[in-house]
């Protein structure tokens, strides 16, 4: 009996040790697990020497993730793509731009999706971790300003006109009432009430906030000298003055709709898809322009593509070039959403699958029926640029697009 007890004590001690070890191992596994290169490649590998590989026979799985803005469009693309290429499995995880880029660097994702190009530091990390990295614009984005002004009817009084200086004044807390002389000056037809403006911004870190504040920084001296700066998350001076912050475009819209005399900013796609009535923004030519598919595409098709960085360069300085287009009818706050991919692969199936998928996105994916409501396809000049970018995808140094036989 005593012996039994001794044995059981030993057993207990061993189990305790096993679990402690298991706990530690589990912890380190969790900590390092995401950094290890996950292999999500297909099972069979094609012979590399043949000069034309049948794409439909390639089997591989791709994991994409990042930006929540592109998520609905990406899911639609994946759905139609999968019906054409059932052997290539594509998944998209809508986790946010930052997590998307970080997971791409760690190797968890094959493609990272982000609303602004990777900041220089991260671009360096990415090239260190994954070799040459290509940044690809995949869809058009931008920021629309929405408002809730009871009694103001845009069919009767015309659009609500706003400038960068007015918006920076509102978000810095310097313009507090709707009947501020600067607002009246650009909207002479309407007699504004003496009501407090409630500014609404995003509570989550967001590419929309980045682009909006970058535009303010670029266009308004007052914003620039205030020291607030620009970024995904802003230390908003108006937060201590009763500003509201909503999560996502839905959150901001809900707050603006429910709060009389409020003003907010949302993604253009969201504003178009939900028929919100946005404000007209003054562009560098002095015209007040509404965010519409045509005014946005005018801004981007007048872009000088030769100013774009090389595909494998650091793209972090591109966004300022997209804002404030000089065209007289262009909407000033436009941008792209981006994908980041690795240039060279040692897994042929993956390289081919990636090329085929991206090629689909930038050919059929950008056509009328495949772009879902509210999203705006890339203008043709950019699309051509992008199609050349994806030709850079290589398998051990050989360009993949030359190896395949696409029907």
């Amino acid at each position: 009996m005593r012996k039994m007890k001794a044995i059981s004590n030993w057993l207990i001690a061993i189990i305790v040790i096993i679990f402690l070890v298991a706990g530690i191992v589990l912890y380190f596994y969790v900590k390092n697990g995401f950094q290890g290169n996950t292999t999500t490649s297909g099972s069979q590998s094609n012979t590399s020497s043949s000069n034309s590989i049948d794409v439909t026979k390639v089997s591989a799985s791709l994991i994409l993730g990042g930006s929540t803005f592109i998520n609905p469009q990406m899911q639609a693309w994946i759905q139609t793509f999968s019906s054409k290429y059932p052997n290539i499995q594509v998944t998209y995880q809508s986790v946010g731009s930052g997590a998307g880029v970080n997971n791409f660097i760690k190797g968890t994702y094959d493609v990272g999706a982000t609303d602004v190009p990777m900041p220089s530091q991260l671009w360096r990390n990415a090239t260190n971790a994954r070799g040459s990295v290509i940044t690809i614009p995949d869809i058009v984005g931008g920021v629309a300003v929405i408002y809730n002004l009871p009694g103001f009817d845009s069919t009767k009084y015309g659009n609500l006109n706003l400038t960068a200086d007015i918006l920076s004044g509102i978000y810095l807390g310097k313009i507090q009432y709707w009947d501020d002389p600067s607002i009246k000056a650009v909207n002479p037809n309407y007699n504004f009430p003496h009501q407090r403006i409630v500014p609404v911004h995003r509570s989550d870190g967001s590419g929309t906030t980045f682009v909006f504040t970058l535009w303010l920084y670029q266009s308004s001296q007052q914003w620039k000298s205030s020291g607030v700066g620009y970024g995904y998350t802003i230390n908003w001076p108006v937060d201590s003055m009763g500003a509201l912050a909503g999560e996502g475009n839905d959150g901001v819209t809900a707050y603006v709709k429910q709060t009389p005399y409020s003003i907010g900013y949302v993604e253009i796609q969201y504003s178009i898809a939900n028929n919100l009535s946005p404000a007209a923004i003054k562009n560098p030519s002095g015209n007040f322009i509404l965010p519409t598919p045509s005014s946005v595409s005018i801004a981007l098709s007048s872009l000088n593509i030769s100013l774009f960085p090389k595909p494998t360069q650091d793209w972090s300085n591109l966004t300022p070039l997209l804002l404030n287009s000089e065209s007289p009818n262009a909407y000033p706050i436009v941008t792209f959403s981006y994908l980041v991919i690795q240039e060279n692969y040692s897994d042929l199936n993956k390289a081919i699958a990636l090329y085929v998928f991206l090629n689909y996105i930038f050919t059929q994916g950008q056509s009328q029926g495949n772009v879902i409501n509210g999203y705006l396809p890339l203008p043709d000049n950019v699309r051509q640029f992008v199609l050349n970018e994806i030709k850079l995808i290589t398998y051990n140094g050989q360009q993949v697009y030359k190896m395949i036989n696409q029907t």
Partner: protein
Amino acid sequence: MQKRILIATLIGVMAMISLVFSLVGSLVYSSIPSILALKSTLFLYYLPAIYGSLVVSIVAILLAMPLATGVAIFISEYLPRKIRSIFISINDLMASFPTIIYGYWGLYELGPFLNSTLFKALNTYLGFIPLFSTQPSTGSYLLASIVLSIMISPFASSLIREVYSKIPYIVDESVYALGLGRWEVIRIKLLYSRRAILGGMTLAFGRGLGETVAVDLTVGGAFSISSSLLSPGITIPALIANQFGSAFTQLEISSLFALALLLFIIGVSFTLIAKLLILRGER
């Protein structure tokens, strides 16, 4: 056989302990860079979120405590046995509702309603008290607290009800025998179950402190501190959920982990305080 049971349960316990340790370990490990970078200012920097978390959960508990206790007493004292089970299942159903539903309901239905009625009245008639000194905002500490208290009170109330109903009937009989009424019965039985009430509230507080979605949708999101319950603010879980997706750099991610660690510390210390209170009550 007994040995086997012992070993089987031991495995469960060890698994739980090692999981907790690895979780806390990863929290501490991941938050080191930001603690080193911010040092003593860490606490100060996140003050609006810490303040918001405490205010929202404490007000929610203050609102939920009478609600939960009242429901528990009503169900076990006044309801006829036959329909009691229906009410109990409704109560439990409320506890198991997805929190995002409460959040959206609070944002789109309850919020606008309260803003135009109760909150407006609080501001107009009691505006001289700093607690209600600002104009009601679409999202606010108080709205989040109310939504939270509605969410957590079924949870606490089922716990209280279980203990309350376990009090032997002889207590009721002896109180009646003394010639006292139902009110005294309830008071005495409440005295018996005060530990359960405190325990239920501790659990509910823990849940409220960690609640993310429902609070995030209703609290307003402003990164500021205000003495007024009617103004917007932010809580720790809401801040983490909001910022995690766009945290690009190591330091940003690390400071979110540091926030989670702070939340954990706050939660643990409140549980300890409650435990101490219960112990003191026993003596």
